């Protein structure tokens, strides 16, 4: 069933009207009608509102029952894959060279946040031409008991075990990770899988052993077979999946958008990435050395014993948790032994789930925000966790609920309702900022170009984001280009006093438009992204492909954006006198914030009017250290709304701690730092009844009134 069918069915089942739903969501009845018929799809934000109205979860509405079991497995198919599929381990090279870890895996430090960024970016890059929205799903699966055993059986983990043991014994860092993973597996009998799927992307197209998407992902390391507008420069993106597996093991199932050798659905291959290792030879004669990588598939009859992809076996796909939802093209990756490489502690799947949701939100909100007319954004993202078949948590990532101010930025831009200055609350300012792209000398050369990026700024509103302004998220600017991923998010320093707090985002390259200048800028910025894709800097690729001026161009771009932001958010100067700041700064008149005097001060005062209408108070006074004993007079005055407070007279003052009383004067004991006394006022000196005014209790040197 699809979204529209679930919506239609549930609406009918609950007996609610189309008009009521339209009113609750804030769209027209006609739009709801189109949603029901399937002519239009509601955006993530609107889905959230519809779900709230119907009292169901947004994820259920979008996807239905995801944890439900698939169609029953055909035993013949199961027998077939068990007979056909094997692990093929690449032997060590004849020159005895050793690769002690996957080079690509070490090229960047990363945790789950990096995984979210890389996979999200790859998914968007691989969207089919003409696909308006691509779907990403992240599923954390925890297995134990029989489900674990069946899974390990299906991927022939037993055959892998000796290799993993051997690899875990070397002294490399990667060996420690493998050892740890095996330890948890043996001791706890528990395994975490992370499935990363996309729907609406191209899938692993291309031949088995020649250039193509498939080859790039499955067989090569540093290969990025992507066209001009793609996100990753070096293809290191995909290796992050292997880096997030304790065993370096990822299984893959893909439906292709373009048939390969007449086949399209269920292209299955597994890849293991181990360092060089040795095992006792099968024939008992010495040791066999292995380069490290291994593949799971059927033996290629023309190239024995190499394994190649295995097509169209539903049983294999079901048994290894890689069943796809429908036949739409795209790829599903299953990270076996998923963990966060940047964290020292083992995390629960709930923690990993939350981290993924947070990272997807932070890095992809521009792509996830709904577009004009309530259409879904460039990408939708779902994160789900299940434990032995039961769903534990699921979240449709919706920036409009987690970061509404940012969603507002993009929406105003897409709806074209931006303004030039921040006038009303909610205004979004749009300005153009120049990036001078240097002359390109590498492939596809061009002259220097002037690109106009778009800056969007809105004032941060206190209530909106739920938490208070002082923390985190305000006064920062996010930067993105055509990939719609936030490359970097930085604070803006040096704002003049009194500037309004704000949120800002820069849309550069293809995110700003589709002119030749925009494309040139996008290409430049892509080249300027290091493997982590987390900033723009002069990388080797930039030095190689562009004439001088790249550093200056990037620095100037940064400075221009900051200057524009400062101008937009600062307030008009309070004084127009044009004298030099050097003099004005010495003539500032501000109420003093701290009390720097060294004198007796009332530390605490408690009391109430008593039955006879007298004020009865208990006062503690703190004293600075000095040799001469302090003498002071307590005063109690009745507060008035305007004018001076009215002093009243004491009937009695009684010392309680470390002081003596003489008439109206308290003398502190020598060396005392705190004194305490009680006082009762003379009610006939009160200007009004005691219960009718506030009592201002102070200690003074000059009493201020005749007794």
């Amino acid at each position, binding site marked *: 069933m699809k979204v529209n069918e679930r919506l239609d069915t549930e609406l009918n089942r609950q007996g609610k009207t189309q008009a009521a739903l339209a009113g609750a969501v804030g769209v027209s009845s006609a739009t709801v009608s189109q949603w029901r018929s399937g002519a239009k799809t509601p955006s993530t934000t609107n889905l959230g509102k519809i779900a709230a109205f119907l009292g169901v979860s947004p994820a259920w509405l979008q996807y239905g029952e995801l944890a439900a079991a698939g169609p029953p497995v055909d035993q013949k198919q199961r027998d077939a894959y068990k007979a056909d599929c094997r692990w093929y381990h690449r032997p060590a090279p004849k020159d005895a060279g050793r690769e002690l870890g996957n080079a690509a895996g070490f090229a960047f430090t990363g945790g789950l946040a990096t995984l979210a960024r890389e996979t999200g970016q790859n998914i968007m890059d691989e969207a089919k031409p003409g696909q308006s929205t691509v779907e990403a799903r992240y599923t954390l699966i925890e297995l134990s008991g029989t489900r674990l055993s069946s899974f390990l059986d299906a991927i022939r983990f037993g055959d892998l075990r000796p290799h993993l043991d051997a690899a875990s014994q070397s002294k490399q860092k990667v060996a420690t990770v493998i050892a740890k993973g095996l330890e948890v597996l043996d001791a706890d009998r528990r395994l975490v899988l992370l499935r990363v799927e996309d729907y609406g992307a191209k899938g692993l197209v291309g031949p088995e052993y020649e250039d193509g998407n498939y080859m790039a992902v499955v067989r090569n390391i540093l290969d990025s077979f992507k066209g001009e507008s793609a996100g990753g420069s070096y293809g290191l993106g995909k290796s992050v999946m292997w880096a997030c597996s304790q065993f370096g093991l990822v299984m893959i199932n893909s439906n292709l958008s373009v048939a390969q050798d007449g086949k399209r659905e269920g292209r299955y291959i597994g890849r293991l990435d181990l360092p060089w290792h040795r095992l006792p030879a099968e024939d008992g004669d010495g040791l066999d050395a292995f380069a490290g990588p291994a593949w799971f598939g059927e033996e290629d009859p023309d190239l024995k014993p190499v394994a190649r992809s295995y097509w169209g076996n539903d049983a294999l796909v079901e048994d290894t948790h890689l069943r796809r939802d429908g036949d739409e093209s795209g790829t599903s990756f299953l990270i076996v032994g998923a963990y966060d490489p940047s964290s020292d502690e083992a995390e629960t799947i709930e923690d990993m789930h939350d981290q993924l949701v947070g990272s997807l939100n932070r890095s992809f909100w521009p792509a996830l925000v709904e577009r004009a007319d309530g259409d879904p954004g460039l990408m939708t993202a779902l994160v789900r966790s299940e434990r032995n078949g039961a769903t534990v948590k699921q979240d449709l990532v919706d920036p409009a609920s987690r970061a509404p101010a940012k969603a507002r930025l993009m929406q105003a831009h897409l709806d074209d309702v931006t303004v030039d200055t921040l006038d*009303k609350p909610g205004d979004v300012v749009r300005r153009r900022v120049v990036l001078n792209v240097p002359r390109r000398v590498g492939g596809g050369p061009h002259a220097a170009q002037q690109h106009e990026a778009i800056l969007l700024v809105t004032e941060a509103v206190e209530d909106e984001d739920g938490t208070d302004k002082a923390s985190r998220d305000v006064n920062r600017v996010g930067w993105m280009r055509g990939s719609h991923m936030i490359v970097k998010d930085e604070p803006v320093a040096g704002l003049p006093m009194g500037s309004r707090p704000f949120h800002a985002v820069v849309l550069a390259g293809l995110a700003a438009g589709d002119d030749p200048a925009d494309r040139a800028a996008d290409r430049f910025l892509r080249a300027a992204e290091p493997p982590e894709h987390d900033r723009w800097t002069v990388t080797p690729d930039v030095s190689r492909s562009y004439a001088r001026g790249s550093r200056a161009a990037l620095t100037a771009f940064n400075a221009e954006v900051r200057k524009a932001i400062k101008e937009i958010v600062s307030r008009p100067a*309070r004084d127009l006198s044009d004298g030099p700041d050097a003099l004005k700064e010495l003539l500032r008149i*501000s109420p003093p914030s701290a009390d720097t005097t060294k004198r007796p001060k009332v530390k605490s005062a408690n009391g109430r009017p008593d039955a006879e209408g007298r004020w009865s108070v208990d006062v503690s006074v703190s004293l600075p250290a000095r040799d001469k004993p302090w003498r002071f007079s307590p005063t109690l005055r009745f507060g008035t709304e305007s004018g001076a407070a009215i002093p009243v007279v004491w009937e009695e003052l009684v010392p309680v701690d470390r002081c003596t009383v003489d008439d109206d004067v308290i003398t502190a004991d020598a060396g005392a730092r705190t004194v305490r006394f009680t006082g009762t006022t003379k009610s006939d000196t009160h200007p009004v009844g005691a219960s009718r005014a*506030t009592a201002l209790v102070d200690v003074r040197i000059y009493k201020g009134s005749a007794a």
Partner: protein
Amino acid sequence: MIAIYPYDSLVGDVRLTVTKVAIDGKALPTAYINPDIPEIAFRDLDTDDWDEAAIDVVVTAPAGEITTTTAWEDPQALVQVLCHYSNTRLAVPLKADPDTPARWTGTVKLDRDACYGRATLRAVVPATVDGVPHRVIGGSEAWALSFDDLPPSPVHGSIAVQWIKFADDKSLGLADYKEDPHHLRLDPEAPALYLNSGFEGLEPLLGDRRRREPAELAMHDSTRVNIAGDAWTAMFVTALDAVETNDDGMPEWPAEEWRIVVLKTLFPRIYPDLGPEDALIEATAARRSGDGSGELLERLLPAAARQVGTSTLLRRGIALLEKNAEMKGADQ
């Protein structure tokens, strides 16, 4: 000083937020609403020709205290506008938010004619306590509303410092001082320091520059700190002169906020062991007595110098000159 209420009052803060202001129906750009001071700067508008301002406000009080303290019945909120120049007092009751406890909203309609110069806007939370209605249990910080009739208050800023060619001046009476480098005018509502742009070389010496030669920097600092020190001394004296004594013989703070702030800023430096009220009494007494007045002035001069940092800049200036001499010596 600590204030005690004869009944339980709010411990947490009452907050007044201005969400929107409309001038004769048109929205006021948010640039004029500054929650940090807090202030609504009507005076910065291009035209003063408007009739009515509608100020939308939200008032919140600590919800936990409001809902759980049984002694307070029927807590409400109202907004008070006070303008002591025009003697206007306005009280606007607010509506309680049906969905959120301890939250009220409303609109204050302000006639331009009812205000002059400066006014304040604050929220007050009254409740019925022990059967007595309208007892104030808490209030918010006061917002400043500034109007075009008066120059901006120097408080939270600095006094106006303006370049004028004294010789050509016709309106401020500065032509009489055309040979002087600067002149201080201590108008009660608008204190200002005028710098003579006709004084040869003064603008390059005092103007803001990024880099200066050491000797020039020393001279620049020395000149500006002396001008500022003199200004503080003069401001203190006129502020103290503005203190009147009431019927009980007690001194009262001056009417102008900047004068109060000048006194309160320098008192801790002049009388380090007296609180503001006591310092006012002491200073007023000193001013009147023969000997005391000399002593007050003796304490005032270093206090003003410390306020502007004379010693620090002098030390720096001397070091710069020494460095300069070294450099010159090295060249020879």
